[in-house]
């Protein structure tokens, strides 16, 4: 009974969404059957979103609840702005209840991003898009808060939780509202010049040079530490780059690939470059410092790193400061490393080092792999030896898989050996797909013993076979043949995956299968989607908004996944339903309802509705007319 009354409330609120919309004047236009069906589907989509937003109160996963409320508000704002504003406010207030997720140990040396900052940016983005006064209200709450001291900071963390939030939002706003981005970034300076300040400044310059110059000048006026200087130096001299010293005293680098090829700002702003170099010299290179504690030493290493980065710039923009800066650098170096030895003499037998200067790229590659293999051969610690062989095998080029396998076969551990061989073949096959050498990839696929890797390769091959042909001379018969080959491959995948244990990677692979199947056999695709939902129900959690490729690297090699060619197939829920939503909306919605975890089901409903609205945007506009 309770359930029934709850449903009634949801229905009433869904209906009221329409009731509150200003009623259009009755028109004599008679809707076609197709239009009537579309409106009925729209009603269902609105109901799905409303129902989900109302249910978030009962969700244990508060992070998912905040995201769902923000998404729901954005999707239905035009239908009912009042209700949507309430959802958005509810989302904003709920952020305080989101627990911080554990740190990613692999990345914590570089970044320790907070979930709360990301969620605040998500809610604020919708607020700025839909209701600026509401967004300003949220921002005021944010800036009135304490800065929020960050503990155990990564080298590239922002100065405070507050500056992380303000700059995250500025980054999102810069494209559509540069003035807002300026204002938010300026406010972040209250806690110092943060790492994210550089990308904001660079993006702002692309939109409005004057605003970027004003922001730069404001930052320069409060410059005080080497890490702050690194941020501004990157902006002026090498866009997208930021250097720091890690806990072991080594140099680490963060690169923003979207900004790394821009021309240096200093060329266009030589006076600003000069002001910056003078400020750094005055505030940092004229001071005495001690090296008594590890912290002192870290600071000095950061200073040395900075001096090394910008020394040649003094020659161009502030030549009178070059000699004293050089003297400072030398003194600091001697103080920090009094007994520095030449490390290059450590490895006495190096084929790479013995190469002539005019050696070709291929010769260098050969020598490098030979060196790595030799190092593994000479290692006496049995575990280090295995790791060294893995490193050498993975250092081979993806297409040079035979050499990689040859090295891997020296690993004296059958399970590890098979894992590495399977990975090297998987990586090679995907590379061949990328290079359109489909036959070679197809030949390699059956040799991959690990099921998920083999399946991903088969999906990629099937996808490549189904791609529209540029060559118009290809006969229809051949196209049909390739379709059949793709179908057979996907059938293999479905059969193989039936026996696999539920895992995130399995679910992603199933979504990938569905996405490709949906291009030519919708019935099979719906079956596959249903199979995927069954798998989701067997696992603890899954984020239906995630569409990245499955992580099928070698467990004990952190970087192995990064050496795999990126696939254009999406492996997320959205990719799976993209080609089904217009033709089979009801079926997709019905399959989503079979997800047992309420949070995952809710996200599924919202994503289904979002895609439905997106795909039918033009049709709704036509009906509106």
């Amino acid at each position, binding site marked *: 009974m309770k359930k029934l009354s709850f449903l009634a409330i949801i229905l009433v609120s869904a209906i009221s969404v329409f009731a509150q919309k200003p009623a259009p004047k009755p028109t004599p236009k008679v809707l076609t059957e197709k239009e009537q069906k579309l409106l009925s589907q729209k009603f269902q989509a609105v109901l799905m979103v409303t129902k989900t937003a109302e249910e978030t109160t009962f969700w244990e996963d508060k992070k998912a609840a905040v995201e769902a409320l923000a998404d729901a508000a954005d999707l239905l704002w035009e239908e009912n702005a009042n209700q949507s504003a309430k959802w958005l406010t509810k989302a904003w207030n709920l952020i305080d209840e989101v627990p911080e997720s554990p740190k990613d140990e692999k990345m914590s040396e570089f970044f320790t991003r907070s979930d709360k900052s990301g969620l605040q940016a998500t809610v604020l983005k919708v607020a700025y898009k839909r209701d600026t006064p509401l967004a300003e209200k949220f921002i005021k709450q944010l800036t009135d808060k304490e800065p929020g001291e960050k503990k155990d900071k990564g080298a590239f963390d922002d100065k405070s939780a507050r500056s992380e939030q303000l700059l995250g939002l500025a980054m999102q706003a810069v494209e559509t509202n540069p003035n807002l981005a300026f204002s938010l970034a300026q406010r972040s300076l209250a806690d110092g010049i943060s790492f994210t300040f550089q990308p904001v400044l660079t993006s702002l310059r692309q939109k409005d040079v004057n605003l970027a110059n004003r922001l730069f000048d404001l930052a320069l006026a409060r410059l005080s530490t080497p890490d702050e200087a690194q941020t501004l130096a990157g902006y002026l001299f090498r866009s997208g780059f930021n250097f720091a010293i890690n806990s072991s005293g080594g140099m680490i680098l963060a690169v923003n690939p979207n900004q790394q090829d821009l021309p240096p700002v200093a060329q266009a702003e030589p006076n600003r470059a000069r002001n910056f170099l003078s400020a750094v010299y005055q505030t940092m290179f004229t001071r005495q410092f001690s090296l008594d504690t590890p912290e002192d030493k870290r600071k000095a290493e950061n200073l040395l790193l900075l001096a090394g980065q910008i020394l040649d710039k003094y020659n161009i923009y502030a030549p009178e400061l070059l000699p004293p800066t050089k003297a400072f650098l030398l003194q600091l170096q001697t103080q920090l490393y009094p007994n520095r030895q030449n490390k290059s003499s450590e490895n006495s037998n190096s084929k790479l080092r013995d190469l002539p200067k005019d050696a070709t790229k291929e010769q260098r590659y050969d020598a490098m792999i030979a060196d790595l293999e030799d190092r593994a051969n000479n290692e006496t610690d049995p575990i280090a030896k295995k790791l060294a062989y893995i490193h050498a095998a993975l250092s081979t080029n993806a297409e040079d898989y035979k050499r990689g396998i040859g090295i891997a076969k020296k690993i004296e551990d059958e399970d*590890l050996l098979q894992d590495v061989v399977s990975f090297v073949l998987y990586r090679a096959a995907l590379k061949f797909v990328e290079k359109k050498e489909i036959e070679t990839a197809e030949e390699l696929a059956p040799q991959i013993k690990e099921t998920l890797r083999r399946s991903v390769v088969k999906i990629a091959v099937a996808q490549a076979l189904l791609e529209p042909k540029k060559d118009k001379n290809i006969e229809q018969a051949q196209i049909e043949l390739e379709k059949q080959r793709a179908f057979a491959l996907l059938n293999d995948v479905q059969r193989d995956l039936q026996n696999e244990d539920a895992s995130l990677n399995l679910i992603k692979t199933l979504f990938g299968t569905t996405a490709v199947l949906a291009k030519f056999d919708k019935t099979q695709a719906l079956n596959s989607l249903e199979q995927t939902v069954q798998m989701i129900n067997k696992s603890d959690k899954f984020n239906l908004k995630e569409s990245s490729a499955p992580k099928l690297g070698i467990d004990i090699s952190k970087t192995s996944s990064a050496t795999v060619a990126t696939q254009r197939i999406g492996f997320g829920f959205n990719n799976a339903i993209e080609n089904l939503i217009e033709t089979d909306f009801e079926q997709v919605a019905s399959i989503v309802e079979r997800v047992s975890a309420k949070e995952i089901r809710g996200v599924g409903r919202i994503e289904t509705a979002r895609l439905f609205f997106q795909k039918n945007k033009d049709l709704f506009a036509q009906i509106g007319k």
Partner: protein
Amino acid sequence: MKKFCLGLFLILFLALNNFAQVKKEESNAALENAKIKITLLDLPGVNLEKSKWELAYELRIANEKQLFDAMTNGKIEDLNAIPKLGEFINKGSFTKNNLSNKENRETVLTIPLDKKTQEMLVGDLESLTKSANLAAQNKNTRESLTERQMKTQNLVLYANILVYDAKLKKNIIVPFNWILPFTRFSHLPGANFEMTFEIKEGGDFAKSVVLPEKLKNSKTTIIKQ
């Protein structure tokens, strides 16, 4: 009476002296080996035939000054850095299969210590006693404390454990590097240490060094894979 008193004093003195000699010999004898017990507490695929663990280790000895220098050079966080800290004592490796049998989830490494290492450890113990006596008399100076600190010996275990869990179908590397201040464990006969580790569902691992009772809380680190 005087004669009796003198005789008793001599006897007592001799007895005490003998006792001290015996203690010192016992102590030296006990220091001939370092014993390190390592236990794999649990892993998801413990009952599966293909699950196994392999350990490769190197034991070294380093005094506090060497550790301090390494720390100020930022090398202490990276125990895999080359050159390794201190002086070499021993190295070895083994693999254990059939992990459903509890005996195969634990091992005791008995590592012989050479004369020089034994003397370093005995020196450490004597320096500790001397420092404790000075402290009791309130005569410890900053210099004597610094001197004592620099003489403190640490056994440094460089090790990696490679686990294959047949249930997770995963190879997992557990870095198993420990710095073991010798005198913290000196109430035990000889150089004895005990560590544990376990693999959790999902492939995370936890590792601990079991500290003596007086230090109670063991140090546990949980690493997410």
